[in-house]
């Protein structure tokens, strides 16, 4: 137990970087849901495609233009290409159903269909072997810059070891949030999107084209998910199956925050990340009935138990999410 307490700060740091990824995915859920009332379970597949496209671009151009520029180009291409795929998914699969006044349940099933197709596409395009990509800021570069406490691609800060990629994850989350804030509050399109989220009927009466706004929401969300995928690509095997688990966690985070609430989604993501990391660090224990249990392998289950508890307690207290209910960053 002492070992566990000693590693706690380390686990929390790890949790924040995991949680920032979940938060990014959750934001995608919130944007789509707020504007078009679709729970898009294919969000994880957008992340997967984003990661695979990013790796492909970096592999292709790292030699001729250098690693730094390759990362930048990879992020850009991944954002745009996946955004386009998101737009395509909306136009081909969701829009025809929405135009026919499909129910929430029907739309969820359609999003499952979309994720089946996208996953198969990812497999056909990139095969079954996991690929990987170097960290954005390799430990080597830091060492060359004269930093002492570098091991591999990690930095030692105080007693805590932080992967350099974790910084990029947190930076990506902050930039995305700032970008979304600017977009939703300062641009005409962003305001129109918010109008659709608040009251679709009045928005339409004011001349806001609802289906074009939904299209933008899908493209934007797919793009954000792609960024999340590109940013974690150096930290885990990149493969067509990677979207399922991450998408599910993003979904859980969004629900914890109250599906239409972006601020709640960010808190939900961070909370889930920290809880998962901390549980993963617990020592092996004896549980009656189950026998010896390694909490790390029960992470997922425990996260869901917590989720259920949050949902039920909140329901009993009559609240809707971790934060308020209104949409807007």
């Amino acid at each position, binding site marked *: 137990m002492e070992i566990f307490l000693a590693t706690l700060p380390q686990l929390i740091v790890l949790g924040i970087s995991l949680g920032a990824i979940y938060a990014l995915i959750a934001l995608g859920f919130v944007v789509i849901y707020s504007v078009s009332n679709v*729970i898009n379970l294919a969000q994880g597949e957008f992340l997967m495609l984003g990661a695979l496209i990013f790796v492909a671009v970096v592999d292709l151009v790292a030699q001729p233009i250098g690693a730094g520029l390759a990362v930048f180009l990879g992020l850009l291409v991944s954002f745009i290409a996946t955004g386009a795929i998101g737009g395509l998914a909306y136009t*081909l*699969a969701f829009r*025809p*159903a929405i135009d*026919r006044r*499909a*129910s*929430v*349940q*029907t739309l*969820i*099933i*359609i999003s*499952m*269909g*979309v*994720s*089946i*197709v996208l*996953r*198969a*596409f990812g*497999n*056909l395009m990139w095969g079954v072997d996991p690929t990987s990509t170097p960290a954005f800021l390799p430990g080597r570069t830091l060492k060359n810059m004269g930093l002492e406490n570098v091991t591999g691609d990690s930095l030692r800060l105080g007693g805590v070891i932080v992967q350099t990629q974790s910084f990029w994850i947190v930076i990506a989350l902050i930039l995305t949030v700032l970008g979304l804030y600017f977009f939703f509050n300062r641009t005409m399109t962003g305001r129109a999107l918010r109008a659709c989220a608040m009251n679709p009927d009045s928005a339409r009466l004011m001349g806001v084209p609802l289906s074009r706004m939904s299209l933008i929401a899908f493209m934007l969300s797919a793009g954000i998910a792609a960024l999340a995928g590109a940013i974690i690509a150096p930290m885990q095997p990149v493969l067509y199956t990677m979207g399922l688990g991450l998408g*599910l966690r993003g*979904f*859980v985070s969004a*629900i914890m925050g109250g*599906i239409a609430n972006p601020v709640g989604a960010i808190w939900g993501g961070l909370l889930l990340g920290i809880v998962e990391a901390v549980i993963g660090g617990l020592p092996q224990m004896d549980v009656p*009935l*189950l*026998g*010896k*249990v*390694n909490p790390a*392998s*029960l992470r*997922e*289950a425990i996260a*869901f*138990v917590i*989720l*259920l508890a949050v*949902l*039920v307690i909140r*329901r*009993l207290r009559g609240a809707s999410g971790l934060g308020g209910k209104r949409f807007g960053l």
Partner: protein
Amino acid sequence: MRFRSFIPVLVVGFVLALVPSLSESKQLLGTFIFAGVYAIAVIGLALFSGYAGQPSMGQAGFCAIGAYASAIVATKFNLSPWVGLLAAGAMSGLVGWLIGSLILRLSGHYLAIGTLGFGIIVAALLKQWEWTGLSSGMRNVPRFEFFGDALKSEAGYYYLVLVILLLVIVLALNLVRSRPGRALRALHESEIGAEMLGVDTATAKLRVFVLSAVLGGIAGSLYAHYVGSITPDTFEFTISVEMLVMAVIGGVSSVWGAALGTAFIWGLSQAIKALPDVLNSIVKIPSITQFELMIFGTILILVMIFMPEGLLPTFTRRKRSG
């Protein structure tokens, strides 16, 4: 139950009973047995999802509980598999009742994610349970015994599944037309409206949730005793999704729709499996299973766009208007 609504059950039962005499292919019968087992779980799911009006994304969790309960009774306690089948129904019903009293307080998307969470928790816990073989699961689950070795043959097992499936259909049709069934339908239209008319909506929902859990458990047990080995991965999240797809494609608010949806999806995946042999001779396909999945996903999307109520309601309405 009126005799008229009994006729389709008899007809379907009669036609399906002919299958073993048409072909003795073990593979074909196996396919039909799996479809029947699925159908039982899917009808259970449809009873709940069709009435609560919300997708249940954790039906495979109940199948897992049934399968494991059955396997434990038969292999660890050396009791008759029939006791296992009863234990499967009882255990999944009990868990359904416990879980239901908790998560049925939720509604809308929250209920859907609650059921999803349940399925994932069950699979994760089973992977950690040393007594039941962790991730490698349980093996050597015996077949049912009935007049000696009657159920040890494929055909014998086929008839067992068929009889249970028909009983389940009759039970479900009866429920739909009974007083509690009407209460549930009222609940589906408007929960507040139903409450105003004196329906105890919370109890009604819990009862149908437990029933759907029991059917899932029975399906799990039938699966375990047929295949003989089970692992936690047999009942993973994607199976729950597949079951929901079957229920929704057939028409989630009808018993026959659920059965039809199961048959449709099952037939479709068999047909797509056969397709690449034909296609492969024309164009070279790199990965056959992924190609299957792509077609599967596309058909799913198309059906949901053009027949959102599912196949059965769409066709029956056309017949009536035409």
